[in-house]
């Protein structure tokens, strides 16, 4: 929480002067009833019309100044809040970018996005309201009470009974309703879930003719919502009438005891009017205060969520820079890896070496540790045990950016970004020329369709690549990794949406166009990796065989089994 305060350091002036001007406005507002009391007590009593006019002019001047002060405060508040918000978001985004994969996994990207956008906005809003209202409301309560005390101490006792009473009611209602609102929200979430599932499952639901049952189920859910909402409503409906009653009964008391005081000559008629005025002001300020509490609770919760991210240490980084040597480009020395909080190693004691320009195939079922093993190479995760060596350097000691620049990664899920095809193709190298881009697209078998698009490289890609087919997305995602001929390419099961013929052409092109590049191909199918210089067979985190296709057929039972089953399939069992 405190950590966020540093983003306010450039806005100290606004933080001080904003509430200060608001305070001035509130003071002026409090003076108005006193002036009006003077008009009644002196102006009217003495039949002095010039006195009345003078005082009325004062009220107008007070109003003009009040307006000027209030506007100044609003401006300072907006400036401070948005300045703070902008700096906070920028720092937060930088920090998010510095986090390791493990940290990102733990928090989840959806939650990161949420904190970066919604939570920072809520905190920003909190700062804005704080400047505008946090001083005003309590001050009005205290100020009105003080003014009342100065007019008549004994009579002001009524204030000190009524104000805590109203506060207590507000407190009671809030404590009672906040958990109930949460419950209602959960019920609403359930209705949202049902709706989403129903829209996604339209075909299945209709295929089973279960529409009516689904409707019945949903009706139950919305019924539930209305029952909860009405229950909360019943309680919060007490707030306004109750505070109205307390305030006005307070006024009745003021009138009665005020009458007694006037009769004894210690209070004037005008002062009595001012008294009732202050009572009204206190009530309004208390209600505003209650709303503030709700807003600040939300802001604090958001501030804590943002702070949590700042508390996570950035990814470790070394200084070594991988150099081009002629020896082994990748070496695993008895490498094991376990995800945070997992009970078992996902990769267990793997050792192998790979020469520059060789192709490595990794095969195995889902969850066998194929992708995890590959993600140790760009140091997305750090080996729990053993050493991962790239270009002669231990990756733990490498500058991660330099390390990742020599690697082209094609993730399992082909994600493209909003912008043109060219923008997407410049991800590895922002200075890539069109020739380099087209050559990469050709290798990835993507140029054939990009060329046919009316705008070619300038074709606009919508968020996530929605306007392309799965196969097209995958091919562009492959091409993106090839731009600038990286030293290592990792293809993480990334040809699943391609048909056999395209897949084959792609593999051929990779071999001829990227001859110097070390290729790591993760796959479930033996056909894709059969020609690799080295194949690692993974089973449940362990490597159960390393060798060429022919060697493994002889020696590795698991590989033999996979191959056989896939061959049988081809021949039609």
């Amino acid at each position: 929480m405190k950590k966020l305060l540093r983003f306010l350091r450039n806005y100290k002036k606004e933080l001080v002067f904003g509430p200060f001007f608001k305070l001035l406005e509130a003071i002026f507002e409090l003076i108005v009833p006193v002036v009006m009391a003077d008009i009644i007590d002196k102006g009217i009593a003495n039949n002095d019309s010039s006195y009345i006019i003078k005082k009325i002019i004062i009220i107008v001047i007070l109003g003009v100044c009040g307006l000027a002060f209030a506007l100044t405060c609003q401006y300072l508040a907006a400036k401070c809040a948005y300045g703070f918000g902008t700096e906070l978001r920028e720092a937060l985004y930088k920090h998010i970018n510095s986090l390791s994969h493990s940290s990102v996994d733990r928090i989840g990207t959806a939650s990161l996005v949420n904190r970066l956008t919604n939570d920072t906005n809520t905190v920003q809003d909190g700062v804005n309201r704080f400047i505008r209202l946090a001083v005003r409301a309590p001050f009005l309560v205290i100020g009105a009470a003080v003014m009342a005390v100065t007019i008549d101490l004994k009579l002001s006792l009524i204030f000190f009974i009524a104000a805590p009473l109203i506060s207590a009611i507000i407190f009671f209602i809030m404590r009672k309703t906040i958990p109930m609102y949460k419950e209602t929200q959960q019920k609403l979430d359930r209705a949202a879930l049902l709706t989403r599932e129903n829209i996604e499952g339209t075909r299945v639901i209709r295929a089973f003719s279960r529409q009516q049952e689904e409707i019945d189920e949903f009706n139950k859910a919305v019924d539930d919502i209305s029952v909860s909402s009405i229950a909360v409503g019943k309680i919060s409906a007490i707030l306004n009438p109750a505070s109205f009653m307390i305030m006005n009964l307070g006024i009745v008391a003021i009138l009665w005891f005020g009458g007694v005081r006037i009769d004894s000559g210690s209070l004037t008629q005008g002062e009595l009017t001012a008294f009732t005025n202050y009572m009204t002001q206190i009530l309004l300020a208390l209600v505003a205060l209650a709303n503030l509490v709700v807003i600040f609770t939300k802001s604090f919760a958001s501030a804590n969520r943002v702070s949590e991210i700042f508390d996570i240490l950035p990814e470790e980084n070394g200084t070594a820079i991988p150099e081009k040597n002629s020896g082994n480009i990748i070496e695993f020395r008895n490498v094991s890896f376990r995800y945070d909080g997992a009970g078992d190693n996902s990769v267990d004691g793997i050792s192998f070496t790979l020469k520059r320009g060789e192709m490595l195939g990794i095969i195995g079922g889902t969850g066998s540790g194929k992708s995890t093993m590959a993600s140790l190479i760009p140091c997305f995760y750090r080996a729990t045990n053993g050493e991962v060596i790239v270009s002669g350097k231990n990756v733990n000691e490498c500058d991660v950016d330099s390390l990742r620049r020599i690697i082209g990664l094609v993730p399992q899920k082909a994600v493209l970004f909003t912008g043109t095809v060219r923008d997407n193709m410049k991800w590895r190298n922002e200075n890539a020329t069109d020739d380099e881009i087209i050559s990469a697209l050709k290798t990835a078998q993507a140029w054939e369709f990009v060329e046919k698009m009316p705008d070619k490289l300038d074709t606009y890609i919508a968020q996530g690549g929605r306007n392309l087919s799965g196969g097209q997305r995958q091919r562009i995602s492959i091409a993106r990794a090839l731009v600038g001929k990286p030293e290592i390419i990792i293809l993480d099961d990334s040809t699943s949406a391609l048909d056999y013929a395209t897949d084959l052409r792609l593999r051929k092109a990779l071999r001829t166009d990227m001859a110097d590049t070390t290729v790591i191909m993760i796959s479930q199918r033996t056909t894709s990796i059969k020609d690799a210089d080295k194949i690692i067979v993974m089973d449940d985190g362990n490597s159960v065989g390393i060798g060429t296709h022919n060697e493994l057929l002889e020696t590795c039972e698991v590989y033999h089994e996979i191959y056989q089953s896939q061959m049988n399939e081809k021949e039609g069992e």
Partner: protein
Amino acid sequence: MAKTIARIFTYAKPYILHFILTVIFALIGVSLSLTVPVYIGKAVDVCIGAGEVDFGELAEIAVILGIMVIASGFFQWLMSLCTNKLAFLTVRDLRADVFAKLERVPVKYIDKSTKGELTSRVINDIEIVSDGLLQGFTQFFSGIITIIGTLVFMMFINVKIALVVVILTPLSFIVASKITKASHDSYMKQSKMRGDMVSFAEEMAGNQKIVKAFVYDKRAEEKFSEINKKYGEIGIKATFFSSMTNPTTRFVNNLIYAAVGLMGAMGAIGSISFIGKMTVGNLSSFLAYSNQYTKPFNEISGVFAELQNAVASAQRVFNVLDEDEVSDDSDKKKLMDCNGEISFKNVCFSYNPETKLIQNFSLDVDSGQRIAIVGPTGCGKSTIINLLLRFYDIDSGQIVISGNNIMDISRDSLRNNFGMVLQETWVFTGTVAENISYGMPDATREQIIQAAKAVHAHGFIKRLANGYDTVISEDSGLSQGQKQLICIARIMLMNPPMLILDEATSSIDLRTEHRIQRAFTKLMQGKTSFIIAHRLSTIKHSDVILVMNSGNIIEQGNHKELMAQGGFYAELYNSQFES
């Protein structure tokens, strides 16, 4: 807009009693509260000065005032209760209606809508309508009654000063609407910038791993910083403009207060005879009224924005309700004792008239035959599912099943004769047993287990935390393959005469894949089946292979015939053996 509001009220019709009571209670509660300043004024008038206080009268006034206050509070409370019920019940009915509508619109409508957006209409938009109703009823009614009431009371006290107030108040309205207009522009800009920022953040932070893999972080930070700065700048403007409304209207109200004070005081000392005689008490109640009179104007202009929002949301909801529905065909013939014979006669179909897809397609399928549909990804293989199950209707030609034109039988009975397994598995939040018995809710546990065993799903289900009673959902940690096995078990339990199976392409581990293959084989015994195939084994042994490309059926025949043709299929098939 008026139409939309009227339509919202048709939903409120069953709760007309609550509506009437709301209005009555508001009328009583607010009117009573308006008498309060009158009695305060009377009380002030009784307390003239030292030794001149008439306690008898003061006590009487105090008692009446107390009763008024309590009664008014009580009726305000009753009003809140009624509005609550009215708003929440109305919204409940509306929500139930939209949901039911979604079950009756053509599949086409769901396909072309964004799924998140549809959900948002059922949930978020209706929430906004609910807020609007609550605010609308409470603030709008009590606001209007307050304005009229205070006006009447002020007229009683002094017509001329009242007229001054009436003339001046629109000022506050005009000022507020001027500011709103001025700020609207920067508000729109702000929400656009915010949208840009959120979508950038979603894209980049949402794909953090790729950003890091490509060392794109610095460039992403630069772009983010640029958007963020713009958002900050426009945010200051928009926020400042919108926060001007309150102080400015407060200022206008102060002016009105001063004007009332001036005229009232002048009237009290009788220096301007035109105003008429006033007491100090009159003045104090007048001042209270002028405060109360201007407040609802501000509130209403606030509520107005909310109401506009609610009406816009309601309109979006009504748009869904106005969609065409599939015709009710429950009175049509039921498809009974289906023998599994299917024939397509000159079928033509396209999703939109401009691009023709399936043209004059004819095929006779005998009972128990296996039809494979192959082709590259995205070639429209699922069109056949859409037509056979009448998710979409054919443009011309006929599909005849077991001697019945499918247009002449009820959709439900047609679908009951098909078992369908889609590539995109669908499990809903519920127990495994509930998911399996989806098509047959009264199946016994015995039958469910039998079905699961038949598709080799029993093993992994047994190992789940609570076995068949484990609650699962789309993202509850079950693998894609396991979910697919549950979907197959669902069909196994139903045992329909015809099947449509979509094989999964996504990465499923080898063992599970084998299980699914075996499950499919078991399921297909003696049934007419359509298989959307990605595996060669399924293709080769099929009785008929339909080869599709860009939405059209380009070749049809069995494996031998198609290989002999040496066309698209042959090329597709042979590529598998090259490497």
